[in-house]
């Protein structure tokens, strides 16, 4: 941690020109893959993420089947070339953990009781990583689920709030993250403001934590609008296509 680096200048601007509570530029597109039942492509800052959904379909392996509801199996994967040093293909401990908490967050909103014994499989591929990929992946995944027509109580926007050189900063990029003192990724159900994903590591006072939560929840609502917008564009495209076909 190099304290000479100034994370926020005297005009309140960060290294990339953002204010403390400003998201990186974000772009979401739904329905980008032909084989998957639903899919989404998302860019936020320099992150590039694909999410695809297959299901509800037969649950493999069988012993995971639940007779009363569907299970949600998310696989989060960083592609080899997505990071500075090449990552070996295949799951590592970090991706196993992230897959687990994203699965749990999505299960919180999917109406799993409608599909006993089934599996809803969510694949998140990180094409390019620049801090915040788990949140980007979850944000994309819930759009892909909606694109697949999976019944859900709500979408799940997600973002991280960080702390760097003493400042609480929304949605750290990689450069900021390298000097970060804390990171708090979270995801909410916007309709109720309930928290379905929450992690923290680093050092925050009790007060900072409270503030960071507020910043995160607020930003999730901004992301929620972009999610809905992506779906709106997707449905209108589909509608257009149908009109053309008719």
């Amino acid at each position, binding site marked *: 941690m190099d304290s000479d680096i100034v994370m926020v200048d005297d005009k309140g601007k960060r290294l990339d020109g953002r204010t403390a509570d400003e998201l990186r530029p974000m772009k979401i597109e739904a329905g980008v893959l032909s084989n998957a039942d639903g899919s989404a492509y998302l860019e936020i800052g320099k992150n590039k993420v694909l999410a695809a959904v297959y299901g509800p379909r037969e649950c493999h392996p069988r012993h*995971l089947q639940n007779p009363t509801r569907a299970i*949600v199996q998310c696989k989060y994967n960083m592609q080899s070339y997505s990071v500075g040093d090449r990552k070996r293909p295949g799951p590592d*401990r*970090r991706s*196993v*953990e992230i*897959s*687990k*908490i994203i*699965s*749990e*967050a999505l*299960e*919180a909103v999917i109406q799993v009781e409608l599909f006993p014994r089934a599996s809803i499989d969510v694949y998140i591929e990180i094409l390019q990583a620049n801090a915040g990929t788990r949140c980007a992946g979850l944000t994309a995944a819930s759009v892909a689920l909606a694109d697949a027509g999976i019944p859900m109580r709500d979408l799940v926007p997600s973002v991280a709030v960080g702390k760097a050189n003493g400042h609480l900063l929304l949605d750290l990029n990689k450069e900021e993250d390298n000097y970060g003192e*804390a990171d*708090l990724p979270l995801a909410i*159900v916007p309709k*109720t*403001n*309930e*928290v*379905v*994903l*929450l*992690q*923290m*590591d*680093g*050092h*925050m*006072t*009790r007060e900072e*934590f*409270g503030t960071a*939560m*507020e910043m995160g*929840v607020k930003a999730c609502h901004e992301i929620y609008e972009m999610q809905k917008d992506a779906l709106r564009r997707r449905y209108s495209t589909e509608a257009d296509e149908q009109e053309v076909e008719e």
Partner: protein
Amino acid sequence: MSRSVVSEIRRNHIYELLRKGRRMDGREPLDLREISVETGVIDTAEGSARVRYGETEVIAGLKMAIGTPFPDTPNKGVLTTSMELIPMAHPDFESGPPGGDAIELARVVDRGIRESGMVDVEKLCITPGEEVWMCFIDIYSINYDGNLFDAAALAVVAALKSAIVPASNHDKGEDFPLPVTCVPITATMAKIENTLIVDPTFDEEMVSSARLTVTSDGNGDVRAMQKGKSGAFTVEEVNYIVDVAREKGDEIRKIIG
């Protein structure tokens, strides 16, 4: 942890009791089970502890060796944490490499230690860029009756606090206590219907909808958190849990001195 199901009757019994603010084992929502901590239980380890939270029992052991530092932290020792959910501990646990549950447990415990700066890893550097102390923390669940997060975290903290760096064995001067800066304590609350309880048993975990694990330091600052399971918390609940966890941190910190 996936095979067991709690019978409908038992589940309802837990619900009904909790609506009255009571629990199966007689505790109130914010009561911990009896906690016992023994250190120095493994002679072959540089530090070790056996911790019991009621019937939940874990052993943590620290082994140290000399290795090369990571290129980007040339003057820091290295910590790695593993958790083994051995089949001895519970009928649902199976042999084999760590699965998702064990990996999450290890990583959450690891973050609590790492992010609090409990171990002064700079003092574990022998020759910058060349030789540092490697700390292998291994945690074994011996008997599992809920709340492995807190038991495992406490066992690791106790093992580290009592550890001696075996310098003389490696011709690196005299042995010295592992340099420890603070005592991070991890406390978990589970949500059952609308009640939040600390230190859940296995049955309570089974019927709970969500879990929040919070590691706090001696100043009451937050060092690590992990939400688990597919239920949700309100923001108010999150804030409440953080406050309870800080209190429980103080309570447990007294036990291990």
